[in-house]
């Protein structure tokens, strides 16, 4: 596991941009709504994440923190 991300469920607005841009397609939309009424995205941390931070770069809500190491 080279990298991982954490998505803040309360900040996410379910815009799906991280999902679209993730080169490994490791993010999906969850089927529940968060408190603000959006379905937040979720990280399917299956070990392929490289910590490239693309998702964080495009996330408008600064909802994603990226770890590498």
């Amino acid at each position, binding site marked *: 596991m080279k990298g991982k991300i954490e998505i803040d469920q309360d900040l996410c*607005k379910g815009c799906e941009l991280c999902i679209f841009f993730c080169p490994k397609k490791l993010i999906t939309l969850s089927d529940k*709504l968060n*408190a*603000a*009424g959006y379905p937040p995205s979720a990280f399917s941390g299956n070990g392929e994440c490289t910590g490239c931070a693309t998702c964080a770069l495009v996330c408008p809500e600064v909802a994603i923190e990226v770890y590498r190491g």
Partner: protein
Amino acid sequence: MLIKTVFAGFGGQGVMSMGLNLAQAAMMEGRYVTYLPAYGAEVRGGTANCTVSVSDEEIASPVASSPAFVVALNQPSMIKFQNKIQSGGIFFLNSSLIKEPLLRGDIEIVQVPANAAAEDMGSVKSANMIMLGAFIKKSNLVNLQTLIDALAVALKGNKKLIAINKNALTAGYELV
């Protein structure tokens, strides 16, 4: 009698058109009506609501500081309006999305699983009309048929849409 209803939910859930349809129907029944949308800079990604006042005489203020009815399509709306609804009023909750318990005991609560019902019907966007149907049944503000006629006006005769919405209204009406 002056009766004020607030419809509230996320932008995009169709609360404005619920209010508009109710207002149109009440107008068709010859009542005094005001419709007041509330939106602001903070609407972006936030909640939206509108107030419909129906009365047999001139309406002083279109604002509802303590509405008789509140229809809440989501949880933030429930939270926002739970302290405003008047004692003895009816709170219509979209139970598909609202899970938290309400903290007041002096009002009636009508739970409508609107999203679930809409999904069952195969048209997720109709949750608002299901809510509206249920609302009409309980509130008795206007006739269901008038509401359906009002709908036809609003949709400018688009048959397909009218049919979908009519079904949803009726389904909601029968849900409670």
